[in-house]
């Protein structure tokens, strides 16, 4: 949003309250722009999945698309965890599709229609929540299945006895860092991409404001870069959703099969 001719690349990340709802303790819960996009993402996802529910033996195009996504995730779970991973496919699939939908919706040029596009996954509160959810499931599954034996995760196979004082500490730290790396990776990738696009967009606006010569000289290369970066960001949107789901499945594998 241009404020006195300046484009603030961070303004796009601001969550705006749309209306108040109720109080939890002394915290207010409101319907926000972020909430609106999450609801839209959930509904779009639901509408997309409805097309895959025809359950035909010979699928149509839509059903093939939906089955492509489900097959992608169940294949990944099968490859990383094995047959026992099937139980957790609904969670990882929901995670992947939800994040993918939010990432892609955040990239759509809704601004052309006067809407305020917003990338929900560019908020640490959201990615952090999902990462902690994944991490909690890993912990619960790990302790549920292996009890205290789950701690053997911190002593990898083949650790020499004289390193037993060091390796478990390193493993513990790397284990505890998982939720942060999971949350930060998605949050930073989304934020950085959108800042980059906003910065290039502001180059075009500022260049045009500085006159036709500067406008053409700066605007055309910036526009060309914008086109490329938009494509790249679509790729990143998919990759980050995939990475989140992949790492969740790998962590689940640790909890299910230990090492």
């Amino acid at each position, binding site marked *: 949003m241009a404020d006195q001719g300046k484009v603030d690349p961070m303004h796009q990340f601001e969550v705006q309250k749309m209306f*108040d709802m109720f109080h*939890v303790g002394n915290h207010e819960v*409101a319907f926000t722009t972020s*909430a609106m996009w999450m609801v839209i993402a959930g509904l779009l996802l639901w509408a997309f999945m409805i097309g895959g529910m025809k359950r035909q033996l010979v699928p149509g195009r839509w059903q093939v698309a939906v*089955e492509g996504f*489900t097959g992608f995730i169940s294949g990944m779970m099968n490859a990383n965890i094995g047959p026992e991973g099937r139980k957790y496919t609904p969670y990882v699939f929901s995670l992947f599709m939800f994040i993918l939908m939010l990432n892609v919706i955040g990239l759509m040029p809704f601004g052309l229609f006067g809407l305020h596009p917003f990338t929900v996954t*560019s908020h640490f*509160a959201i990615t952090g*929540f999902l990462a902690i959810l994944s991490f909690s499931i890993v912990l619960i599954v790990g302790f549920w299945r292996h009890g205290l034996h789950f701690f053997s995760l911190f002593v990898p196979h083949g650790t020499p006895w004289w390193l037993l004082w060091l390796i478990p500490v390193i493993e513990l730290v790397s284990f505890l860092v998982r939720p942060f790396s999971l949350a930060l990776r998605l949050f930073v990738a989304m934020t950085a991409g959108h800042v980059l696009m906003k910065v290039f967009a502001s180059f075009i606006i500022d260049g045009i404001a500085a006159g036709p010569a500067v406008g053409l000289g700066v605007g055309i290369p910036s526009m060309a870069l914008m086109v490329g970066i938009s494509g790249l960001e679509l790729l990143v949107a998919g990759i980050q959703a995939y990475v989140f789901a992949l790492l969740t499945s790998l962590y689940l594998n640790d909890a299910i099969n230990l090492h």
Partner: protein
Amino acid sequence: MPQISQFAENWYAASQIFWVLLTFGFVFFVIGRGMLPKIEATVDARDRKVADDLAAAKAAHAAADALEESYRQQSDASRAAAQKSVTDAKDKAAKDAEKRLAKIDAELADKLSAAEADVRAARSSAMAEIESVAAEAAGDLVAKLSGVKIAAADAKAAVKAVLHG
């Protein structure tokens, strides 16, 4: 950075967590738990059907192979039988022909030897006649030419000597 500075606002974290819980809960329970298993079941059913159909096709192929093999064996056997009966018939025919030929040969040889014997008998009788006629003629010739009467036996001996060298 609003993502961090907005944490200071009273409503921010509560609203974000509440709504992500609600929407992700919807996605997980309705889509992940409700729709995904049905879609996976459809895919599994299709995979199973394809595998079953392939197995059935393979079995049918094997059965067809076996059938073809047995047909081939049968036709080989009947061909061999046919060949055998043809050879048998040929052998029999050849043997019959040989037997008949041998019989005919024997008959012909008999006839030939009989004919030869006849010829020989005829010749010897003819020769004997020629001898006696020649002796008579020689006796007559001598008598006419020289007027000497020769004994029939002498004339015969002389003619025999001339005739047989």
